[in-house]
């Protein structure tokens, strides 16, 4: 296969680049995992830090101890060596001192051999590996005479006795140095001592080479022991740190887990408390807190249950007699033609006021249900277009009576939203009813629009409107724009409050805009999917035909927080 070289090269480069990218990615991933573990685990942090600090400390101490022991060993050896060197130097001086002539090299050689054998026969020398060497000043290294007299030792001695040492000894000093030399193919460390031996025919140098094998061995032994002990100590410390942090971290983790379970609603979760130490105290305090919480919540739940029961009982107790009264009133009402005018009118009033009483009772019970937190959203997909049409149809007779034509601006396609149809219908009924009541016979426009996440309905009237700053007040219970104004259609004064609660239950918004003489607009915005959070509305709150030139009407909106639609919520009743 003959590929052009540059193609091959580019392929190789590409492959390398891919590999490098893979490696980089793997490293990045691993690094991220390590960082995550580091951030999340207190235990890992403590163990790592303990490991690092103890390793540094033990390392330092170990180094100092090993150095101290080695130094001591060497010092002892040096002391002993110096003693031997001094004795040897004394002997050599006496032996060589008797020779006055230096001209005869043979004599020198003989004397040197004699001195060497004399020194070698000393009791401390017998059986040891100490090398003795003698050399005359000015002679080259080859002239070194050494004992034991063999080539390997001679070579070793020649290497061990360096010119620098020789210079120092020549100047009349006793000097020493450490040298590692090759002896018969294996390294041997020597403590080399040199001393000058004064003779009549000039300075002779005497050298002792003390093998340090045992000392080196001892030092190595010490180092090894220190390293092993140190490493063991560090590992042990890390283990202890892990164990101790585990002792502390475990109850903390347990507490965190228990707290999570508690907050998830498992109120009978408690920590196991052992002993009387700080952790046991933590556990006890935690359990006490959980117990108090549980008691409080149960108390609130009980109160809420009682409240609900009371609401239900009041409802039943009031409604049954009301039903009887209602039926009796109906009977009387249907017979009113046969009564005299005053009684007939009374029957009419009784009938009308019963209607009002009934709707007031219904609204009051509805509000109390919201207050008790027992309103449940029964959301399912519904077509908002249909709901709006239905509301408009149902209110058409009322609207006609008030001469307020209701115009609908609806999209052609159905707008399907997950809503509680009963509640949305009630909200729209309230809004349109309100518009009819305050519309002063001018047209009312109901607009529906939807976007990707929300649907909105606006109800616009051109009635008297309300003052700036009253946008929030309209939702207050029993609030009236003008207390002196006679009520015409007899609303309960709770309609908008209930509507606001209904919108809130959907996670939606109900807002109002109004200007004196320009009428009002209410906007209901609902999420298309139940539980979604609203961010914007498809319709504007301020109507396009509002005269903003006079005074910029700043719409004060009531932003309704999205509430989790839970049925048994007790806390915020």
């Amino acid at each position: 296969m003959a590929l052009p070289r540059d193609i091959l090269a580019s392929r190789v480069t590409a492959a390398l680049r891919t590999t490098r990218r893979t490696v980089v990615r793997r490293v990045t991933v691993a690094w991220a995992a390590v960082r995550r573990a580091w951030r999340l685990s207190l235990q890992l942090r403590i163990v790592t830090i303990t490991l690092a600090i103890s390793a540094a400390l033990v390392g330092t101490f170990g180094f100092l101890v090993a150095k101290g022991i080695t130094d001591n060993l060497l010092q002892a050896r040096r002391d002993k060596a110096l003693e031997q060197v001094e004795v040897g130097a004394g002997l050599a001086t006496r032996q060589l001192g008797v020779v006055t002539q230096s001209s005869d090299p043979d004599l020198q050689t003989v004397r040197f051999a004699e001195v060497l054998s004399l020194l070698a026969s000393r009791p401390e020398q017998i059986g040891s590996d100490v090398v003795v060497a003698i050399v005359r000043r000015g002679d080259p290294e080859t002239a070194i005479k050494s004992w034991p007299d063999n080539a390997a030792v001679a070579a070793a001695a020649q290497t061990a006795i360096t010119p620098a040492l020789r210079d120092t000894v020549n100047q009349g000093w006793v000097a020493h140095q450490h040298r590692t030399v090759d002896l018969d193919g294996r390294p041997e460390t020597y403590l080399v001592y040199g001393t000058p031996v004064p003779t009549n025919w000039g300075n002779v140098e005497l050298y002792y080479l003390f093998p340090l094998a045992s000392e080196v061995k001892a030092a190595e032994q010490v180092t090894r022991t220190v390293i092993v002990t140190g490493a063991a100590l560090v590992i042990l410390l890390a283990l202890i740190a892990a164990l101790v942090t585990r002792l502390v971290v475990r109850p903390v983790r347990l507490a965190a887990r228990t707290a999570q379970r508690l907050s998830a609603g498992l109120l009978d979760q408690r920590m196991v408390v052992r002993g009387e130490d700080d952790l046991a105290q933590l556990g006890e305090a935690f359990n006490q807190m959980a117990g108090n919480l549980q008691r409080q919540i149960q108390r609130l739940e009980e109160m809420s249950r009682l409240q609900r029961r009371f609401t239900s009982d009041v409802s039943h107790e009031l409604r049954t007699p009301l039903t009887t009264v209602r039926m009796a009133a109906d009977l009387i009402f249907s017979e009113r033609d046969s009564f005299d005018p005053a009684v007939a009118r009374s029957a009419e009033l009784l009938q009308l006021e019963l209607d009002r009483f009934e709707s007031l009772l219904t609204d009051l019970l509805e509000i109390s249900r919201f207050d008790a937190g027992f309103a449940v959203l029964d959301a399912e997909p519904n077509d908002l277009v249909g709901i709006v049409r239905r509301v408009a149809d149902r209110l058409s007779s009322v609207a006609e009576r008030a001469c307020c034509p209701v115009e609908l601006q609806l999209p052609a396609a159905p707008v399907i939203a997950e809503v509680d149809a009963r509640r949305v219908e009630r909200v729209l009924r309230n809004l349109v009813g309100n518009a009819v009541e305050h519309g002063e016979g001018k047209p009312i426009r109901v607009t529906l629009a939807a976007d990707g996440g929300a649907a909105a309905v606006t109800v616009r009237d051109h009635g008297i409107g309300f003052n700036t700053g009253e946008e929030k007040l309209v939702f207050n219970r029993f609030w009236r724009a003008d207390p002196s104004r006679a009520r015409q259609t007899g609303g309960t004064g709770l309609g908008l409050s209930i509507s606001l609660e209904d919108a809130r239950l959907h996670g939606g918004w109900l807002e109002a805009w109004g200007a004196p003489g320009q009428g009002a607009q209410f906007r209901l915005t609902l999420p298309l999917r139940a539980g979604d959070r609203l961010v914007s509305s498809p319709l504007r709150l301020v109507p396009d035909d509002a005269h903003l030139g006079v005074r910029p009407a700043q719409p004060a909106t009531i932003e309704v927080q999205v509430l989790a639609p839970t049925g048994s919520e007790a806390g915020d009743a």
Partner: protein
Amino acid sequence: MRARVLVVDDDPALAEMLGIVLRSEGFLPSFVADGERALAAFREARPDIVLLDLMLPGMSGIDVCRAIRAESGVPIVMLTAKSDTVDVVLGLESGADDYVVKPFKPKELVARMRARLRRGEDVTPEMLTIGPPGNQITIDVPAHTVSRNSDEVRLTPLEFDLLVALARKPRQVFTREVLLEQVWGYRHAADTRLVNVHVQRLRAKIEPDPERPEIILTVRGVGYKAGTG
């Protein structure tokens, strides 16, 4: 023929007033004031329709409803002071056909009762079949019988009416409001939970797997329709 009505209510004033209204509307009412004796009174009176208060001393209205439903398909209209979802749904699930929330208008109650009693007027011989092949439901309309794989399924008259309404126009989607009008006789749309609960009850009786219905299908956002082959 005057329809017999059994009124199960513990409030004497309301019972008496109901009596006055019902008699004036041409019914034959009989009364029982507590739940314990309700079943005995039911067997004795053999009423055409039952008005049942949910809150009763002794046996609760829900239990009375279940007991009556266990032995008869007679129409039951609940009188309830509670319009809470839970109470209403519980009542409907225990077998009530319809409910009226106190305080109700007498005309409204009578209209509800007449709607429940207006039955068997159309006796055209008619056999209907719905459901996917192998799982078909056969309805004999004049005989008021429903069978699945030649086994008879016992339905209450209301469930039967609901099924027939859906089966007569397969493929057509019925909104809950339309069903309320056709089956329950509501002129104006009322509580659509009535439809939901009764569709559930019906499914429990005729579907092989009520969790995955094949005979009565839900059309999201619109309503229900009969499943066909």
